[in-house]
């Protein structure tokens, strides 16, 4: 398959890994932001190809993992409201709230549906005028344009029975939060290629200059990631701290202007709580005034305060790259994908799930 096979090529991977080994002269810690990249690293066994001096830590780029527990509880409560069709991307369904997950709500009779596009939820609302259709708008900059388009379309169609439960987050403020933490040991970043395809990478230039860290916009295939690592390592060894673009086949500096326009039309930036991390200023999106009538959080009554997170779960430290999943005392024992204590064990983008599925290496080595 073109644009895939050449980025999974063993020869290319080995060549890049050899270059990285040659270039590294001292220990470096690099964070890949996106959960999709984390999964590629573990699924392809990339760490095995890298020199021991290089540590990859896994960032907060899993939208499912950072969606606050209150919002999951809210989603479940809305889904269980009679007459509601609750639509979501597949990964959100298994995430534990303080009580049930959406999948468990479905088993108890709630009408929860997996859709591939928020526009499908708009179609459902159009076809079912007597039902309230709610879409769980989760994600980073990548999914924001489609969600904005759904609201815009609902407005054009004059739909009164469609709303979004918004849990949108933004990458650059999260990177800044990690960099400004006194415990930060990350010296370079692989920035998420898909997010930058939409949003561009202008924002990252300010971060690279201010915190003196190299940031390389990177793709998601094994060869992409090795090349991104090589570019970060080269900058570190040469004492540079710039933004470079490895994912040139998809990303331009200015991003996708049209996509940005629809996002700006429908959403505005606001403070947002991240599960496991806390409130990060100006790190989320909320619906702008003219579209606020499509906000499910306003349309449905608020629910009771959530129970606390599992005290044993170290998801916050994992999401900030301060710990790796196997360092958690509950990992693979009390916390598994079937009985998760925290969201990173559930999501297909979550670091804990990646280690659980691919990374229990005692058997692989």
């Amino acid at each position, binding site marked *: 398959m073109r644009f895939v096979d050449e980025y999974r090529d063993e020869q290319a991977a080995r060549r890049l890994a050899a270059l990285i080994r040659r270039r590294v002269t001292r220990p470096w810690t690099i964070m890949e932001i996106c959960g999709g990249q984390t999964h590629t690293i573990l699924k392809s066994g990339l760490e095995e190809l890298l020199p021991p001096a290089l540590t990859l830590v896994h960032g907060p780029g899993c939208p499912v993992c950072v969606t606050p527990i209150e919002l999951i509880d809210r989603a479940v409560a809305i889904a269980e409201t009679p007459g509601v069709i609750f639509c979501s991307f597949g990964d959100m369904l298994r995430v534990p709230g303080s009580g049930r997950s959406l999948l468990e709500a479905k088993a108890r009779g709630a009408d929860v549906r997996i859709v591939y596009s928020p526009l499908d939820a708009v179609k459902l609302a159009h076809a079912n005028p007597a039902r309230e259709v709610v879409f769980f708008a989760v994600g980073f900059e990548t999914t924001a344009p489609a969600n904005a388009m759904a609201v815009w379309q609902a407005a054009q169609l004059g739909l009164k029975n469609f709303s979004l439960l918004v849990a949108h987050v933004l990458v650059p403020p999260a990177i800044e939060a990690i960099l400004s933490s006194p415990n930060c040991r990350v010296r370079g970043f692989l920035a998420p290629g898909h997010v930058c395809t939409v949003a561009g990478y202008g924002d990252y230039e300010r971060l690279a200059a201010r915190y003196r860290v190299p940031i390389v916009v990177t793709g998601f295939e*094994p060869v992409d990631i090795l090349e991104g690592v090589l570019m970060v390592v080269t900058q570190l060894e040469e004492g540079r701290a710039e933004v470079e673009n490895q994912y040139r086949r998809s990303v331009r500096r200015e991003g996708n202007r049209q996509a940005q326009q629809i996002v700006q039309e429908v959403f505005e930036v606001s403070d947002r709580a991240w599960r496991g991390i806390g409130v990060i200023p100006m790190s989320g999106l909320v619906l702008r005034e003219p579209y606020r009538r499509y906000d499910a959080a306003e349309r449905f009554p608020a629910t009771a305060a959530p129970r606390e997170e599992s005290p044993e779960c170290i998801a916050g430290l994992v999401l900030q790259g301060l710990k790796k999943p196997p360092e958690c005392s509950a990992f693979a024992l009390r916390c598994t994908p079937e009985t998760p204590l925290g969201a990173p064990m559930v999501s297909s983008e979550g670091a804990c799930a990646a280690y659980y599925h691919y990374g229990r290496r005692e058997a692989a080595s």
Partner: protein
Amino acid sequence: MSGFELSCPVPLPTEERILLAHGGGGRLMHELIERVFLAAFRDPALEARHDGAALEVDGVRLAFTTDSYVVRPLFFPGGTIGELAVNGTVNDLAMCGARPLYLSAGFILEEGLPLETLRRVIEAMRQAAQRAGVRLVTGDTKVVDQGHGDGIFINTAGIGLIESPLAIGPQRVAPGDAVLVSGDLGAHGVAILSVREGLEFESPILSDTAPLWEPVEALLRAGIEVHCLRDLTRGGLASALNEIAQARGLVISLEEAAIPVSEPVKGACEILGLDPLYVANEGRFVAFLPASQAERAIEILRSVPVSSGAARIGSVLEEAPGAVVLRSRVGGRRVVDMLSGEQLPRIC
């Protein structure tokens, strides 16, 4: 998980409910089988946990199996629920090394179902039975209220004759065995999903539903010492291999580059965020046999149309604990885990 010992059937805690994932072929389903079904119906034939039970009656070795079909939609590219209901049960018999002979069919029909729909499904079953060389000899019909079924549910049971003296089953899998698949993976699951999700691909992906006795018979006739056969239905290749690896305390090692997946299926899986190793097949099986016979076995399989895409994908290693490992295309190694819950489409 393994090592879980129960002497009497214990109900799941009252708060636990059946989730769709309990039928997904992954870890939850295996827990359910162990904790509820096996605990209640202890029997050596059941505990062999093969696709069907191998039974001896007056010196004749029979295989007996049953399966229910609840696929939605009833009609999909490459087949219908009718073919699945025949081929699925025929294949469970074939995986015991048994020549499929007789089937039963039970129908649960939903009030309001157009008779024409039923006729099309029955015609598909008739043709599938003819192709597989089995006779449908007994049946049952029930009708449920509208809204209490999904058009048509079908249960079939099958009886087959084990002619070969080999005892085919997971217990025979041994270090040094070669692991073969009979063709490219994932077409059935992707065909179903493409209809269910309204996705259209440039070239339509057809279900691989097919009877598998012919290639199995060819292997046995040629004197290939088949150790174990497994059809790769729910949960796909990864789940089937994990079951066997865990049951035997062996490591099964795979080469990612050798696992056949067609370009359209690969593309669809990329878009949907699915791993073809976990996608269901309805006309594919994995065979364990001595490595010395692997080349000949592949030649034999390739001479039969339904298994013309056969390939060797790995080996059984000596070491414990039971696990499936894979050497990735770029040369790293990782574990191939059993499916947790259902494969859910990802966000981005």
